[in-house]
């Protein structure tokens, strides 16, 4: 959904989340997925300046079933419910769903969340029972190994070094260190990056996102209602998806087609260009995902993304800051949901010492089996 008529008609008006770092330091099995979701929902509703009784739409993510949270949050007047399965790729899809729901009057105020307890559950992202392509009989395990294969291919086609790739996690770590609640607070230099162990060579530990517990929730409503609420509205300029379902996960063209298609959906109706984007808050499951999106969306020339990210360009203070709260590599693996929360803070001007000056537009992408993207902006631009 990104047509001119829809653009900017809906808004994110509340954000809330759990204490990622606290729970990482001190894992607590009593903080279940339902408990974390409830905390995030309460915070998002309060942030919006709404009463709980006004929430009439619910989109759940990360949990086996919507009901335990629906009861715990005492929602009593709900007109619209959607239950998303646990999968990192769903954030843009859930936002698309929430926005269309309020735009078409299926609900007035939709609360949507993602809640995960990967750490306390001991979730392994390695060996699936079999994989889609008989993966495990060949010892093929983990999404990271799939992205690693993509990177060997990328290097064969375009060159580039592992040290160059390290600029992405290093920049993102520097942002986490400015973010209260971000899990990884220790400084990381390029030498620290290169000294980290290989997981699926050529990708290293620090190319991988975190595995942790937490929840993030938003409240979405129409832009018109948003203007009466607590904060300046953050408008949903558009959402997009483009999936080419293939069992080997990593797109053979590094998601170029998906990115071009989503960019056209998001940018063209509005006349927005890459020059307009003030920061990127993107799905950094693995460092290479950021690289491929930069090229696919046309921020970096094709095949030159590794050179492009050097010399502070993607760090705060640089030309295009990426994942200003530390992303999933260093803040929290909330699967795109912490990125959108940070986008909201940036567009409200609430990002404190991380604030990107004059932040008008923030772009999200997720390059996965189900690619999605979203474009958010300040009020008054559409």
């Amino acid at each position, binding site marked *: 959904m990104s047509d001119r008529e829809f653009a900017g008609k809906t808004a994110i008006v509340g954000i809330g989340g759990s204490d990622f770092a606290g729970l990482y330091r001190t894992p607590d099995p009593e903080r279940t997925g339902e408990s974390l979701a409830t905390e995030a929902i309460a915070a998002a509703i309060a942030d919006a300046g709404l009463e709980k009784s006004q929430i009439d739409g619910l989109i759940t993510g990360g949990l086996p079933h919507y009901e335990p949270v629906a009861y715990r949050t005492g929602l009593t007047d709900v007109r619209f419910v959607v239950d998303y399965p646990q999968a990192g790729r769903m954030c843009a899809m859930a936002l698309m769903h929430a926005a269309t729901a309020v735009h078409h009057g299926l609900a007035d105020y939709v609360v949507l969340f993602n809640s995960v307890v990967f750490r306390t559950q001991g979730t392994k992202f*390695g060996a699936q029972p079999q994989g889609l392509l008989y993966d495990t009989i060949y010892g093929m395990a983990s999404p990271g190994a799939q992205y690693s294969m993509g990177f060997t291919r990328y290097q064969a086609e375009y060159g580039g070094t592992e040290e160059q790739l390290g600029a992405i996690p290093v920049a993102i770590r520097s942002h986490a260190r400015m973010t209260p609640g971000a899990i990884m607070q220790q400084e990381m230099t390029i030498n620290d990056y290169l000294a980290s162990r290989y997981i699926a060579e050529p990708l290293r530990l620090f190319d991988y996102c975190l595995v942790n517990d937490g929840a993030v929730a938003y409240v979405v409503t129409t832009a018109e209602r948003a203007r009466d609420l607590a904060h300046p509205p953050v408008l949903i300029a558009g959402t997009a998806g483009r999936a080419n379902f293939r069992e080997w996960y990593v797109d053979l063209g590094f998601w170029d087609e998906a990115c071009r298609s989503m960019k056209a959906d998001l940018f063209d109706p509005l006349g927005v260009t890459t020059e307009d984007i003030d920061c990127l808050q993107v799905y950094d499951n693995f460092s290479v995902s950021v690289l491929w999106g930069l090229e696919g969306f046309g921020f970096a020339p094709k095949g030159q993304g590794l050179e492009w990210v050097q010399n502070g360009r993607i760090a705060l203070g640089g030309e295009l800051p990426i994942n200003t709260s530390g992303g999933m590599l260093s803040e929290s693996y909330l699967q795109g949901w912490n990125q959108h929360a940070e986008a909201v803070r940036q567009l409200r001007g609430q990002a404190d010492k991380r604030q990107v000056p004059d932040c008008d537009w923030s772009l999200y992408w997720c390059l996965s089996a189900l690619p999605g993207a979203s474009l958010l902006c300040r009020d008054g631009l559409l």
Partner: protein
Amino acid sequence: MSDHVGYTKPLPTVTHEDREFWAAAREHRFVLPKCQACGHVWFPPYASCPACLSFDRGWTEASGRGTVWGFTIMRQPYIPTFEPELPYNVVLVELEEGPMVYSNLVGIDNDAIACGLPVEAEFEDATDEITLIKFRPV
């Protein structure tokens, strides 16, 4: 060629969709599903054609030839029974017929593996029932 006794690594769960594929592999034949309606060749062996959705599935003998699209060297012990083999390679092979398959390259050092390398299939009997298809450089 491999030890039939005590194969401990993961084995496929044979289903109604891929029974014929594994039966052929056991005879050291590499077959791929082929749509009798539209001619599409696919993998893994779903019962229906992902191109035209026909259930009229036949089989075609694969040449066994392909090229390495990408590879990774696994360093982390995700699968306990693979741990003694670390670091080992996994490759994504683009078959001459089109489909992509995961496998392992044999007969080559990990640091000599490269994208674009031409490879051919070979059969590795894991158990009496299951034969794995692996690849070696041509």
